[in-house]
Each structure stands twice: as structure tokens, then as C-alpha cells.
């Protein structure tokens, strides 16, 4: 018997339901699914008793201009519970949920408005299946047995196609190792093999990475590869799975058909699907949300995660402004760094945590050979392209201070480069946490083997309202860390006070981080005077908690 959804009305606010049975609901505009939700979980109480209102998701709302033929249906059995023409605005047009490139969009399981498979053409799906084949082959070459996993496995087993509401493809493998340390080492090795055959790889954790597969149109498609292992009758698969499991439910691998192509799957795919999606995996649910047990999340976090905390936030923050060149003035640490580099004839200036590259660009324009480092490098790569004509002595390299391999690898490279070097770190240490600070000192000790200096500006103490700040730093502790790493002299050369921040302020929307960090916004309360030192701005009366920062200089 069909579920009761009790659709009362569909309008510009959303879909109004009366005492609906719980479960997934699809919404189609002019015959195309654009959104799905759960009747109770994803709705709010309506005005009337028992009513539930599913409000249009924000990313979709701005497309609701004009009119559309709306269908509300149960994805389980396809039964239609509402059908009618809905007028969203006076505009004489059909609602069109299409991006500037002409691709039709739908809300995916994470609430993002993206080109999902059901809105993509045959060609696009074929390209994805080909990419799956490439990555499977590359991973197999590294000596493990990969299979399609998560939504891709579900699609292959349940309907032999990709899931319409999905937007990517996932690959998994179960290691022959039983200890997480060996699983991580193996994952590093697999990454090297995949890089060796020519793919770009982005690592997420000790057991998961994304392989970027170039497409015909120049775009790169990222496919996730999740590592897993079996230990004493329990399977852990990176991402979401931790379940009692048997070896012969995985090996030997079997096959299933995905979009007409044979793909490897675990020996008993239904067992993995049940461990992943629960016993109801056979019933379509476009808005499935993982309810991963705390035990599993905790174990996966401890064993594998924490290699790049905050990475997604920084990516998101920079993505909003990626086409603009940074405009702000050089920071205090950059200006000090420049003076040090010129006075000591330094061979190289290293701008760590370069962000969008304002300081690095300024330093390079002063004629100093500069390397801009960050763990999110796309804004810096864009910057390099923009200023290519200037022929600046500027290079960009990735560096992740929370990943020891990154620090030691880059440190080893710099240790072999002769000459004094100057390190500039503007609001870096207050954004990387204790491990990042420790690795910063380690990096400096390697990079400055031939001598040089470090110029770091960072907040000390509590930083209310500074969304990106991690922990509260103490200048003495940082100085002690640098001394332990070989600095012969460490001095606080300036102490500054800054106006309080608004709590919960969303920097992404209205605040350019570079502006945010312009240290001239701070009042100097104590500073060693240099030859071209500027005074702080006037001290207006302030309320709330004043932020304090210091400029710390270390000589190696």
C-alpha cells in the first residue's frame, strides 16, 4: 500500500504536508527531479496541527522564478502524490534550474545544488564510468583489489546504473593488512603508484584520497578511493563503515554491471551495502544520511584522520574570491621580512601560510626570490597565472604543517639549498594548532641550516570572533619551541591590540580574510622601532574583548 504523504500545497515557500508518513519524497520541476527530502526529519511544523513544511533549500530558491509543472512523488514506488502547475513569480517563463554552463542541476544528498547524474547526459555518465575503470586499474596496479563502493556499489547492485541523485563515484578496497599503521603505509604507497602513472592525487586522510581524472573538456573529475581493513572479524572501511564482517564476504571479489560495464564488487555486496546503508538499502532514498555509530567515527578519526584540519573551510573561503588579485598592503611580518632579507642578502624568502598571496606577491615585486607556501594552493596558482607577464621571482609550493611527511619532505629540499633564508608567517601559527606550531619550528630548523630569520605575527591568548583561529597561543611557549629547534635569539618585537570581533561573523560572506588580517588595523602598544616603521592607527574607545597579537622574530 502506498504511503500517505498528505500533500496540501506547493508554493514559493515549499511543500506543505499533512501528517505524512516518514520517508523520502521526490520533487520534480517540469519532469526533472531537483530535490528530495524526508517527510518528517527534514521538515518543520506548519501552521496547522500535524502539518509539516518542507521549505525550498536556499540554493534552489533563487532559481524559482516563473512557473513550473510540479510533481511530488514517493521514490520508493514512484507513486505521484501531487501534480500541478505552480506559479512562483509573475515572470512569464518556465523555472530553469541550470548553471551558467548550461548543465541542469539538482540538490544532491549533501544539500548542494550540483549537476547530478539524472541531469547529465549519456556522454557524461560514460565518461564517469571510464574514469572509474582508469582508477580501478591504477589502484589495482599498486597491489590491492579495489571495488566500487558506497553509492556506486549501491547503484550497480540495485539497478545496474549510477544513482540518479548521486554526483560522484566511489572506490574502496580492503587491505590484506590488519593493523591501521600498515593500512596507512599501504595507502601512501598506493598514492605513489597512482601518481607514477600520471594522475594528480589529493589526500584526505591516512586511508583515503581523491584521484583527479582529466576529462575531454579539460575539467578534472575527482574519484574517492577509500581504504579499509579487516581485523578479528570486524571490517572498517574509511568513511563510514565499522561492522562485524567476514573475510569471505569480501574475497574473492565478484562482479556487477554498472551502466553496461562490468565492475568489481565484494564477494557478498549485499553484506557491505547492509553495513553501509542499513537493512533498508534496497529501497531508494535520495536523501540518505549516514548515522555512523560513535564507535566507528571515533576509531576512524583516531587511526586515520587529522592530517589537514580546516582544509575544506580554507578551500571554501578562497573559492569565493578566487578570481580577484589580493589588494591588501604588505603585512607587518612581510615588511620586517623584506628588511631582513635585504640587510642580510638572503637567498630566499619563504612566505608560509601565504593564503591568497598578497605578501608573497609584494615580496617578489621587491625583487626578492620568494616561495609562497600554503596547504590550499589554488589561489596562489591563480595568482601566478595572473602575474605571469611580470616575470617575478615567485614560485608556489604546497606545504601542510599538520602533516609530518610534508614538513620533512619540503624541509629536506630546503636544507640542501645553500644560503641564508628569511621565513615570513603572517597569522599562520594561530591557525594551525599545536602540531602545526611544532612542525613550523621543525621546518624552520631544516630550512635555516645556513642561517636566517623568522618573522611571525600571530594572536596571543583568546581570540573570540576569529573563526579560523585554533587554540590560544602564548608567545613565550612559541619562543621556547623555536629555541629548542635551534634559534639562537628570539624576541617579541611588537605587541598590538585589535578591536573586538563580532562573534559568529561569517568571514566568507562579507569579510575578505586579507582585509581581516591587515595588521595595520591594530594599535601598536609596544614596538621596537625600525628605520621605516609606521605607527599604529589612533586608539578609539573600544568595548568587548580586545584581541592581542605579537610579532615574534627568531634568528637562526
Amino acid at each position: 500500500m502506498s504511503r500517505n504523504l498528505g500533500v496540501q500545497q506547493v508554493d514559493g515557500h515549499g511543500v506543505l504536508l499533512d501528517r505524512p508518513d516518514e520517508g523520502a519524497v521526490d520533487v520534480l520541476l517540469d519532469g526533472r527531479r531537483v530535490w528530495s527530502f524526508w517527510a518528517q526529519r527534514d521538515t518543520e511544523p506548519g501552521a496547522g496541527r500535524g502539518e509539516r513544511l518542507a521549505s525550498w533549500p536556499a540554493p534552489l530558491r533563487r532559481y524559482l522564478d516563473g512557473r513550473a509543472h510540479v510533481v511530488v512523488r514517493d521514490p520508493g514506488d514512484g507513486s505521484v502524490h501531487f501534480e500541478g502547475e505552480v506559479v512562483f513569480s509573475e515572470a512569464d517563463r518556465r523555472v530553469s534550474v541550470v548553471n551558467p554552463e548550461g548543465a541542469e542541476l539538482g540538490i544532491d544528498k549533501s544539500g548542494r545544488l550540483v549537476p547530478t547524474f539524472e541531469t547529465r547526459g549519456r556522454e557524461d555518465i560514460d565518461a564517469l564510468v571510464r574514469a572509474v575503470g582508469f582508477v580501478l586499474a591504477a589502484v589495482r596496479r599498486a597491489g590491492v583489489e579495489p571495488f566500487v563502493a558506497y553509492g556506486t556499489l549501491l547503484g550497480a547492485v540495485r539497478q545496474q546504473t549510477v544513482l540518479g541523485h548521486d554526483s560522484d563515484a566511489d572506490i574502496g578496497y580492503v587491505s590484506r593488512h590488519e593493523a591501521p599503521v600498515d593500512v596507512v603505509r599501504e595507502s601512501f604507497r598506493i598514492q605513489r603508484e597512482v601518481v607514477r602513472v600520471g594522475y594528480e592525487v589529493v589526500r584526505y586522510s591516512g586511508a583515503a584520497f581523491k584521484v583527479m581524472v582529466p576529462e575531454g573538456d579539460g575539467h578534472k573529475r575527482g574519484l574517492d578511493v577509500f581504504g579499509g581493513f579487516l581485523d578479528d572479524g570486524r571490517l572498517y572501511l574509511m568513511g563510514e563503515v565499522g561492522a562485524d564482517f567476514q573475510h569471505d564476504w569480501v574475497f574473492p571479489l565478484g562482479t556487477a554491471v554498472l551502466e553496461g560495464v562490468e565492475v568489481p564488487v565484494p564477494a557478498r555486496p549485499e553484506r557491505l551495502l547492509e553495513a553501509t546503508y542499513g537493512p533498508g538499502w534496497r529501497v531508494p532514498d535520495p536523501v540518505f544520511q549516514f548515522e555512523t555509530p560513535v564507535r566507528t567515527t571515533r576509531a576512524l578519526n583516531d587511526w586515520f584522520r587529522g592530517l589537514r584540519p580546516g582544509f575544506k573551510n580554507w578551500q571554501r573561503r578562497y573559492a569565493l574570491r578566487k578570481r580577484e588579485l589580493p589588494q591588501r598592503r604588505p603585512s607587518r611580518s612581510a615588511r620586517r621580512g623584506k628588511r631582513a632579507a635585504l640587510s642580510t642578502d638572503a637567498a630566499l624568502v619563504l612566505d608560509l601560510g601565504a593564503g591568497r598571496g598578497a605578501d608573497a606577491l609584494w615580496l617578489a615585486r621587491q625583487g626578492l626570490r620568494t616561495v609562497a607556501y600554503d596547504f590550499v594552493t589554488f589561489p596562489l596558482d591563480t595568482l601566478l597565472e595572473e602575474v605571469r607577464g611580470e616575470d617575478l621571482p615567485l614560485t608556489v609550493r604546497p606545504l601542510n604543517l599538520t602533516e609530518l611527511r610534508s614538513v620533512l619532505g619540503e624541509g629536506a629540499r630546503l636544507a640542501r639549498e645553500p644560503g641564508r633564508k628569511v621565513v615570513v608567517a603572517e597569522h599562520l601559527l594561530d591557525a594551525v594548532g599545536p602540531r602545526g606550531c611544532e612542525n613550523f619550528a621543525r621546518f624552520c630548523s631544516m630550512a635555516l641550516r645556513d642561517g636566517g630569520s623568522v618573522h611571525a605575527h600571530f594572536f596571543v591568548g583568546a581570540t573570540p570572533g576569529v573563526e579560523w583561529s585554533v587554540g590560544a597561543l602564548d608567545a613565550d611557549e612559541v619562543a621556547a619551541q623555536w629555541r629548542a629547534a635551534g634559534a639562537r635569539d628570539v624576541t617579541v618585537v611588537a605587541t598590538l591590540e585589535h578591536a573586538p570581533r563580532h562573534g559568529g561573523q561569517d568571514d566568507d560572506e562579507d569579510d575578505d580574510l586579507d582585509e581581516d588580517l591587515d595588521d595595520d588595523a591594530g594599535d601598536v602598544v609596544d614596538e621596537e622601532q625600525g628605520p621605516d616603521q609606521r605607527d599604529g592607527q589612533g586608539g578609539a574607545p573600544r568595548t568587548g574583548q580586545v584581541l592581542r597579537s605579537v610579532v615574534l622574530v627568531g634568528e637562526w
Partner: protein
Amino acid sequence: MNPMRPWEALGATRRAEQERLDKLEQRVLDLEAEISEMRRHHLRLAELTDVVQELLVPMATRDEERIREAIDQFSASI
């Protein structure tokens, strides 16, 4: 010696019970923290082993070309 009244005895039992529960709760929290500490060594150990294998071993050869190649390849694969 004053014998304990029944309600006083009950109160003392409840307090002892609560104390025992508090201690057990703390013990569970401690155990969770200790397990977490141990688990986190896996990633650190894997990173260090990888560095030794991919960077230090080639460096021990003192072959300049091999060292440069090892550093380049290592950086490109992180």
C-alpha cells in the same frame, strides 16, 4: 557511639553508590582517552616509517642524483 539512623544509612549508601558511579564514569572516560592516544600513534608511525623508507634510505646512498630524485618524488606524492 551513635548508631546510624535508617535514613542516614540510606543516604550514606546512596552517596557511596553515586561515588562508585562517578568513579566508573571517570574510568570509562580515561580509558577512551588512553585508547585514543594509542590509536593516534598509528598515523604518526606510518608517516615516520614512510619518511625513513622514501627519504632517509636514498640519502644514505650519498648519491646526489638519487637524493634529488627521491625528494622530488616524495614531495610529488604527498
